[in-house]
């Protein structure tokens, strides 16, 4: 009994804060999604109408497909690259600290700064990236969706690969030296060490890195918007752009709410899948 009181007391501050900043606004979204509003203050129950209209809108499905593809590409680029760099980092010493500091700089760049930076880098006449594309004969055409996607992926990789590197680096430091000695006695090469020792021990950090990257790239907004304004055409109009357009620019709270809830369902399924992968391992993996 006393234990329960202690647990509750320990959890209470966090639960209160999460109630205010998470549960309440999320319930508002659920409420919007089932109601229609005229002036934003009188609401009429409309049932699943908004869901049906979102699910039958091709813009929603295309935006969803683009967001999925973007996240998939982000993970395919950033996770292997991040692991590779982390494996090559020195274990300790002044160089390790210098590298950590430099790696963390892009992480702390505000989204607007990142977007602005890459907008300038890809601008004709003044941008380094633009000049680089021209110099190797590829030509930089902002009307070509492939080129635009490549720059967004490059931007995201610049901003966020360091997160994967730092998390994996931390995970690698937690592997006891004895594991490596045992592997060396068994005559294991670098690949075998990676495959059978490092990768399994990185599972936990990799999964959280994947979750964070997945979610943040899935709802990328400001950075991509500054660089491309969703174009050319709608080729870089992602889910969050669609959502912001609907909910705050057209002030269509119901449709925006329904879109948000659908997004949450998708994210909940993916997160649950990852979570069940992580948590049974939590105890041994430490």
């Amino acid at each position: 009994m006393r234990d329960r009181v202690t647990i509750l007391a320990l959890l209470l501050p966090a639960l209160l804060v999460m109630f205010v900043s998470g549960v309440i606004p999320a319930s508002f979204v659920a409420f919007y999604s089932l109601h229609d509003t005229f002036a934003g203050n009188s609401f009429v129950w409309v049932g699943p109408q908004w869901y049906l209209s979102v699910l039958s809108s091709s813009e929603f499905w295309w935006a969803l497909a683009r967001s999925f593809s973007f996240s998939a590409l982000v993970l395919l680029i950033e996770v292997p690259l991040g692991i590779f760099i982390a494996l090559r980092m020195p274990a300790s010493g002044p160089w390790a600290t210098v590298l950590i500091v430099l790696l963390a700089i892009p992480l702390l760049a505000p989204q607007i700064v990142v977007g602005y930076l890459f907008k300038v880098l890809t601008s004709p006449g003044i941008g380094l990236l633009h000049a680089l594309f021209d110099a190797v004969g590829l030509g930089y055409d902002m009307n070509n969706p492939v080129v635009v996607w490549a720059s967004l992926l490059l931007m995201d990789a610049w901003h966020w690969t360091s997160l994967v590197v730092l998390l994996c680096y931390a995970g690698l430091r937690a592997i006891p030296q004895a594991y490596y000695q045992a592997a060396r006695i068994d005559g294991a090469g670098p690949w075998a060490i990676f495959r059978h020792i490092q990768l399994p021990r990185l599972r936990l950090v990799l999964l959280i890195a994947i979750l964070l990257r997945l979610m943040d790239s899935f709802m990328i907004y400001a950075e991509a918007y500054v660089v491309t304004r969703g174009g050319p055409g709608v080729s870089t109009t992602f889910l969050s752009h669609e959502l912001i357009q609907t909910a705050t620019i057209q002030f269509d709270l119901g449709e925006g709410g329904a879109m948000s809830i659908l997004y949450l369902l998708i994210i909940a399924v993916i997160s649950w899948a990852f979570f069940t992968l992580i948590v049974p391992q939590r105890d041994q993996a430490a």
Partner: protein
Amino acid sequence: MKGRMSIAPLVYVALLMTPVYWLVAMSFKTNAEIGGGLTFYPHSMSLENYALILTDPDWYMGYVNAIIYVVINVVISVSVALPAAYAFSRHDFFGHRALFFGLLMFRMMAPAILLAPFVQIFSDLGLIDTHIAVAVAHCFFNVPLAIWILEGFISAIPREMDESARIDGHGVVSFMRRILIPQIAPGIAVAAFFCFMFSWIEYMLANALTTVDAKPIAGIMTRAAGVMTGDIALLSAASVLGLLPGLLLIIFVRKHLATGFSMGRVI
């Protein structure tokens, strides 16, 4: 293994720093030079842009505002997450798993989703354009993350320590203050670092919940970019100054960060 340096991280970091160098170089150029074609370093060092930003409160208050709400957010996030993380780490209560996952789900929500309700709630409360509004809004993604990180660090400490502290007569509060917090100080630094990072870079909520008095630099930059599309040099200087607080933080906590990372179990 120790201290061995290989070429890959050096090349990678050099590539990371190239755009940063580019940005810094542009911030010292004049617009005439930027418009006149590619130059790899500023030919006429101009400090005008920095002078303008650092003397005009409409500009520099943007940094101050952002730092204020970020610091409030970090303090709230870490201080409520610490006891919760301890509970999750040490007690196997009913609904433990579901609650932990439920909290994690909020980290998976995006600012875009909660934007409309936050605007409505904070308008109703009369809190639009206050630092506290942004700080509280940012809690939905930072509190779960801080709990997650701290839980990892606390779980790395053997439970025997709790018991011997109890035998020594420490209550929960005194145990946390005297024993737990000093033990996991690097973990707290790592958690604070990540909270600072995600709050500092966030744009959508921070911009939508503020108008003048609490407007972060990112919002001021967007406004300036809309009005004077041409002033690349000025916006570059504003961007460089936007990188500085983060850089100072990293340099300031680098030792803790390195220890935190080497304690393993970051997450």
